[in-house]
């Protein structure tokens, strides 16, 4: 029951940039919401708001289906080429 916040308050990057639509073909923009193993980062770590997190998760799943973003990567690929194909 401490008065101070335990963690720094985070802000939604997409709200600041006033994003209201995301294109799944622009893969570079998705990088901030993917872990190095290409998992979708949870909202509690990125600070995204619910609205934008929902948009991102849909867009990432579309990009995965379109073979623009991998579903998973092996341990080897994590070390050798982090975000190689997202540039």
């Amino acid at each position, binding site marked *: 029951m401490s008065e101070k916040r335990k963690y720094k308050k985070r802000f939604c990057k997409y709200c600041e940039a006033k994003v*209201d*639509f995301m*294109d*799944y*073909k622009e893969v*570079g923009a998705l990088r901030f919401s993917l872990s190095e193993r290409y998992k979708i980062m949870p909202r509690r770590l990125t600070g995204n708001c619910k609205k934008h997190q929902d948009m991102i998760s849909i867009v990432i799943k*579309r990009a*995965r*289906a*379109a*073979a*623009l*973003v*991998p*579903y998973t990567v092996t341990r080897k690929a994590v070390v050798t080429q982090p975000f190689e*194909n997202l*540039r």
Partner: protein
Amino acid sequence: MRKYENLVIVKPTLTAEEIQASVKAIEEVITSNGGEIATTDTMGMRKLAYPIEKNERGYFHVIYYSVAPAAITEIERRFRLNEELLRFVTIKYDTNREIKAWDGLVEKANKKAAMSAKAAETPAATEVPAATETPVVEEAAAPVVEEVPVAEATPAAE
């Protein structure tokens, strides 16, 4: 009529002419089912994020069109029968916000097509500014250029 977008990935093993013919056939499927193609965007040969049918690369092509919603099942059925297609992704643009985004995407694709057409007409004129403004162009060119070391090697040589 509803607005749609289709991304198709054509097999990389075909020759350039065969790919063009395949893309034509795909567009033909849409138009023959009552679709009106607004614009197309060629992303070109790209590395796939994961192999599909043992192919490491694929030819990406995006088609923006509007069609009656009932025709989509038939279009997708025809795509599924097409063996030259590795993958297709159909996106529906339904809400007002999405339709606005669709218009924006079409405009962007048209602009890109006009740019590349201009570049094809006068290749010498476009190459000269590219050499002078190295840092800006490099940023823009990075997604297109496959091998990054090559792009980085040029400023070091100058």
